[in-house]
């Protein structure tokens, strides 16, 4: 099996999950495809060296998160180019919940958002998340706690009993 074949097999098995991860990070499917493409190109460039790694998935997650964080740093990503929000999808309970979740995620700082996605979508452990984020496990824990606090505050209206839907 050639390098390209091995690369193709590896990526094909993970492409769908990668795209979903990218979508949760950035909130837009087109941007998610851009992010995943950029991550896959980086992976391909280093394929010979990294394909023997024990935790190649972790490496790929790290690349994806960093590509996204870099994208966030770019000035044209900081402000949306439209004055009014674009048309929303037809209303429905599931759609509303989905949009609300994405909106709340979008309000989180990038690294906290990434921590939530890595831990609760990809089901990575604290250690794996720390490796993917390039930070300490303590930072992951604190970022997770802050992110969950923020999500909880947004999702539970003031005055309602403090029976949090999501606890850490």
């Amino acid at each position, binding site marked *: 099996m050639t390098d390209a074949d091995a690369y193709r097999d590896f990526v*094909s098995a993970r492409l769908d999950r990668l*795209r979903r991860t990218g979508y*949760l990070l950035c909130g837009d499917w087109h941007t998610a495809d851009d992010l995943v493409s950029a991550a896959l190109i*980086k992976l*391909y460039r280093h394929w010979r060296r990294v394909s023997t790694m024990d935790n190649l998935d972790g490496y790929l997650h790290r690349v994806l998160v960093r590509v996204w964080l870099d994208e966030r740093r770019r000035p044209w990503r900081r402000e949306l180019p439209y004055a009014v929000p674009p048309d929303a999808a037809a209303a429905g309970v599931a759609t509303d919940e989905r949009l609300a*979740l994405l909106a709340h995620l979008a309000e989180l*700082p990038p690294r906290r958002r990434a921590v939530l996605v890595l831990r609760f*979508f990809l089901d990575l452990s604290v250690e794996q998340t720390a490796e993917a984020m390039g930070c300490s496990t303590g930072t992951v824990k604190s970022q997770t706690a802050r992110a969950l606090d923020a999500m909880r505050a947004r999702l539970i209206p003031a005055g309602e009993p403090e029976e949090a*839907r999501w*606890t850490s």
Partner: protein
Amino acid sequence: MDQLSHALHAAAADPPPTAIDLDQLIAGERRRTHNRYRFGAATGAAVLVAGAVAVPFALGGGSGHIAGTPPGCRTVYYEPGTVFPPTPESTPSTPPVNHGTSAPHSALPIDHSTSAPHSPSPGVSTAAVQPQEPIGPSPTFGTPPTDCDVLEELLDAALTDAVHRWLPDADMVNASVYDRPGLFHLDVDRSYLAYVQLGEAVLQVQVGASDAYTRGLCAYPWQSPSCEERLVPGAKLVKGGLPGKYGTTIEAVTAAKQDGTEVRLMLYPDIQNYYPGPYAPLPLTVDQLTAIAMDPGLTLFP
């Protein structure tokens, strides 16, 4: 927790068809690599020819200097036609290349409403009255770098040591996006750039070539009109703070070294990840930043 996990999975359900074509991606990357090697070989041949012509003049005591591409570099290192290293008597008529106008400034949390003097706009000179004449002793020059990858590693080690001298337990995390293990990368403007996460702050370090030692750091058009440079052994220094967003401060130190290297350090709270604060005090003082900038390892000419 399961609910959050479930909600995330539901939110990402039903993805549209992907535009990612793996075969196209692989083919494009192969083509890029092929072109890079081909262009690199052509450039290398041109540099060899140019070097063969230029070396006799240089060895013969002429005033010309070799401005070429160090073998192994991934991008051209000097501007075409640049006289480098700069001679003490050279006084450029045009502003020097701003080594920090692309990624670094765009990533800084600068409050532009109060930091007009730091505007990177090259056409607006707020320091026209600054001295243009050579200041200080004649510069000395080292051996130009021969391999950018090696230099990146040397700079990584030097920066790590310099920071750990002041923060022994600091966890220095590469906050840039490049999927390489080190800290520095060769930026598009041919300077070496590092973003380092230091706790709740970001340290931005830029190491580039400059003739500021001979012409004066304050001559840069983006420096404040009140800019004052200080001559210390082996370098000229400018240091001071800039107003950042949300009431934060960006500490900045620039050192133009005698060997033709310019080191810029900026330290600021990581407002992207810790907004809205409160922000922890910056982990390094201006004097410590100055000491790091003056570290002899942070040079283009090791």
